[in-house]
């Protein structure tokens, strides 16, 4: 039996199909992954993501430490709870993990992936040596993501006045504390919404009130297709330690100029590299991870994430390739199938937004 979030019994009673997710028993879907996907694009859905790892950075050197730890520049972020997405790199520039930091002052708040928890904590503590900065894991929280065009209105209808005021004051990609809850306008779906870190003993009653307000529970299956449509990477699929952020469509989260973060030298030396691109299937069929990709019939790489896009009604993928052209194909069970090469994201706020990649 795996680890259980405070909402495990809620998932079971809703008839969720459960599966192991890095040692946690997590809901994959509650009946239909596709209906759940549409519910988030068209209305509002809630995800239990309590398996994710919450870390606080205590001490006066938090900013100096993050400047060394992360490829993105914490100095550019306002210390008012603004969120920053970044890769954390090895000395050779490989992506150890991707994470979100909330610039809440001392302590900074960081959310890292559950699959990389042990590795991340060990690395973060190793880098913290010599800094007035303590890396403290907070395991007593639940995390709920409420996403969709109606998500914020519905959340406001079930929380108290102070939290409503906090939410109304937040800009996109900003978070803040209120009464032991951290509420941020962030997410992993390409929709409006909030992510809420709250004490685990309050998770069940909050979950119940969200469902009573008409918010639909969404499993990790739809979470994956939503994030793929939004052009967001999944650690372990689209990038890992063997590739740099420059090869992972994350160049806009790397600030090299005047900085000395871990991995920076390796990135400076990496002048030629593969790229992570978007693919859209022209015909029928489903693109899946590890299928080979061809440009003008020559092998150029492989798919890192692929799925049927419920919003677009056809298959989409991310692929790491050494070259692109107007003649791209993917090998599916030995047959070449035509694809378009595009710049992600594929979908934002419910609408198709991808653009053909210039070659």
């Amino acid at each position, binding site marked *: 039996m795996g680890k259980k979030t405070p909402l495990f019994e809620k998932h079971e009673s809703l008839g969720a*199909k459960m599966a192991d997710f890095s040692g946690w028993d997590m809901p*994959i*879907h509650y009946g239909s992954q*596709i209906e759940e996907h549409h519910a988030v694009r068209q209305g509002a859905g809630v995800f239990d993501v309590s398996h994710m790892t919450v870390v606080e950075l205590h001490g006066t050197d938090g900013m100096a430490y993050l400047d060394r730890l992360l490829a993105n520049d914490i100095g550019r972020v306002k210390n008012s709870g603004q969120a920053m997405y970044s890769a954390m790199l090895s000395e050779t520039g490989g992506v150890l993990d991707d994470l979100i930091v909330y610039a809440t002052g001392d302590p900074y708040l960081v959310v890292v992936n559950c699959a990389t928890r042990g590795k991340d904590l060990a690395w973060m503590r190793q880098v913290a040596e010599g800094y007035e900065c303590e890396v403290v894991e907070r395991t007593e929280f639940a995390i709920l993501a409420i996403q969709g065009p109606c998500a914020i209105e519905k959340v406001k209808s079930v929380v108290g006045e102070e939290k409503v005021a906090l939410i109304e004051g937040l800009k996109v990609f900003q978070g803040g504390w209120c009464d032991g809850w951290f509420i941020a306008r962030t997410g992993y779906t390409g929709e409006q919404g909030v992510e809420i870190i709250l004490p685990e003993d309050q998770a069940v009653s909050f979950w119940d009130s969200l469902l009573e307000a008409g918010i639909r529970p969404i499993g990790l*299956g739809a979470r994956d*297709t939503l994030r793929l449509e939004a052009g967001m990477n999944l650690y372990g699929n689209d990038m890992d330690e063997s590739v740099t952020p420059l090869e992972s469509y994350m160049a806009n989260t790397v600030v090299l100029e005047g900085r000395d973060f871990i991995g920076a030298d390796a990135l400076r030396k990496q002048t030629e590299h593969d790229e992570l691109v978007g693919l859209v299937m022209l015909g029928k*069929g*489903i693109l899946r991870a590890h299928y080979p990709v061809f440009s003008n019939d020559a092998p150029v790489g492989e798919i890192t994430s692929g*799925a*049927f896009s419920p919003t677009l009604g056809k298959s989409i993928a991310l692929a790491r390739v050494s070259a692109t052209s107007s003649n791209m194909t993917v090998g599916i069970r030995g047959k070449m199938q035509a694809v378009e090469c595009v710049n992600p994201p594929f979908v934002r706020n419910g609408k198709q937004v991808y653009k053909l990649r210039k070659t």
Partner: protein
Amino acid sequence: MAEFPTELRYLKSHEWVKQEGDMVVVGISDHAQDALGDVVYVELPEVAAECQAGDEIAVVESVKAASDIYAPIAGTVVEVNAMLEDSPELVNEKPYADGWFFKIRISDSAAVEGLLTAEQYQALCEAEEH
């Protein structure tokens, strides 16, 4: 609970088979569609294709994975379910009716008797879950 109609025969690879004279209709079981999750694409065989028992002749793609569909008995494909092209969700909604995949004309009509009964197949599914 998944349904296991007793008038059908089954393969351990989760296809169901229904005999209609010298033809068999083939689909995937309720248990299989439930395990796959939402079906998003079905790649069907060519009409007139010859097949041997055990040949991979179709593919069902769900939100989760691509799975091969095997020919249960040797024969010739005589019809495929064209409705699945635009409505693959029929496999989830009516696995034993509108969600059928293809029909095969078989030379050995006794071969159907060699397939699993509903009872045998259900026992196999239950064993898989434990």
